[in-house]
């Protein structure tokens, strides 16, 4: 997420510089016969126009300069706006820690008071501990009975226990989603969630930590809704060979897009799994009751 935003910022910055310096050269050439512009004049004009300052002391007057200006400004000015917006995403976030820290010593000293914060500045890592403590107290939202995380190893065999595990995981995911610094889950945990999503009955059939290659899998066939992922096929290593294991949910074209959306998707699927499992359970029980009644 963060890396992505910095990439976007770098790309728009490069585009901006390219627009600025390229256009300066073109304006110099265009306006040379009429106003005898130097390269710096062109650069100055381009900058004043791009930043929408618009003094108007140097403006294009030749027809070539004016026509190019219209085309160029329609492309370049939005680029600058985009660059400023992405700078907001990146630079401001990078500076947020410092801003929070400055705020904590100047505006809102907090419960511990101003001297404590000041003292924190001169300890081993000046400021950083106080800062991280502050950020932590801001960014963590206490959430009920959040127990320890189930290690992503084995699916509980008892149905009730399975449900409790899923509910626990849902609690954890909601908690994680509310965190500012949430950076996505490790692959192993993702695999564990995928196994949970399969539901109680199917998850048991799948060998721990791996499930077989799906024959019907194609890039675009993974459906978003309903939670039917195409991994319900029976284990396919009848030949006894260790076939190449495949995780269609993680491959290109799956419904999981981007770290945060991915986790939201998993949340939805887990809820669906619970619902289906309960419905199935009810159906079985109803059938049993009718059988008993008959």
């Amino acid at each position, binding site marked *: 997420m963060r890396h992505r935003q910095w990439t976007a910022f770098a790309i728009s910055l490069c585009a901006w510089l390219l627009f600025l310096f390229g256009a300066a050269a073109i304006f110099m050439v265009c306006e040379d016969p009429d106003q005898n512009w130097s390269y710096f004049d062109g650069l100055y004009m381009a900058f004043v126009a791009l930043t929408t300052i618009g003094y108007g002391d140097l403006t294009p007057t030749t027809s070539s300069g004016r*026509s190019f200006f219209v085309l160029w400004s329609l492309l370049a000015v939005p680029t600058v706006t985009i660059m400023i917006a992405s700078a907001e995403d990146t630079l401001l976030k990078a500076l947020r820690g410092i801003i929070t820290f400055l705020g904590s010593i100047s505006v809102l000293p907090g419960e511990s008071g101003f001297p404590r914060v000041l003292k924190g500045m001169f300890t081993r890592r000046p400021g950083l501990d106080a800062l991280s403590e502050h950020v932590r107290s801001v960014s*963590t939202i206490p959430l009920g009975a959040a127990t320890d995380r*189930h290690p*992503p190893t084995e699916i509980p065999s008892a149905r009730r226990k399975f449900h409790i595990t899923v509910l626990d995981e849902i609690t954890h995911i909601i908690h994680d989603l509310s965190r500012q610094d949430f950076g*996505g889950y*490790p692959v*192993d945990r993702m695999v564990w969630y995928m196994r949970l999503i399969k539901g109680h009955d199917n998850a048991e059939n799948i060998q721990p930590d791996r499930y077989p290659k799906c024959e019907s899998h194609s890039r675009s066939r993974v459906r978003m809704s309903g939670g039917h992922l195409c991994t319900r096929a029976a284990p396919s290593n009848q030949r006894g060979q260790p076939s190449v294991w495949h995780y269609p949910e993680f491959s290109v074209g799956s419904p999981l897009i981007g770290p945060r959306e991915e986790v939201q998707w998993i949340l939805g699927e887990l809820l669906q799994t619970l619902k289906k499992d309960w419905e199935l359970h009810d159906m079985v029980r109803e059938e049993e009751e009718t059988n008993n009644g008959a």
Partner: protein
Amino acid sequence: MTSRYLSSGCLAAIVVVVSRRAAKSMFAYHWSQAYYYCIYAAVIYFTIASLLSLNFLGTCRGHLKPDVALSTTLRSLLLHSMAFLAILFLGAVVFSRLEGWSYLDSLYWADVTLLTIGFGDIAPTTTLGRALLFPYALAGIVCLGLTVSLLRKLVLDKGSSTLHFRRLANLRDDYLKQRDCAGERIHHSDRLHVAGILGVTVSNPHRRSPGTRHPSAPNAD
């Protein structure tokens, strides 16, 4: 696509013919703005036609999906940018009539105005023109702002997220394949290396604890 190439060719032909004739004539010519716009249009049409044919070829060979999903953001971006260009061009027509400018000078003025550059080398002088500037500039600037924000939302966020996700997906696939083939034999440092590329953490297989969290994350439990 073909028609794009045709129109691009026509424009290029016009440019070539006109410049030949001008070169032959004795008089010194000043190229009008229309001449330059003609050149730009030819170049842009050619680029668009080439992109379209690339897209067509890609679809034929099966690299690209044939259906283009028009999301709501994309649709509204199209609508907004068309509305902005319509405001720009129609405003240029109206103000060129009112103020007695040539149409292309008026276009230049409208561009400078709506992008809030405001050089002031061309400015409306009649009262009607000045009065009409109020609604015109408001509509145009708002429309441009919406277009830019939509563009940002669509191109930057969506485009780079797709790029990011594709990379992530491939790396994950590789990692999982490697893990399942070699089992626990993958060295932990390799895992950490992969994790560095993935931008996520990978749990230590030898440490069976719930500690598979992001290392920089505060202990949320």
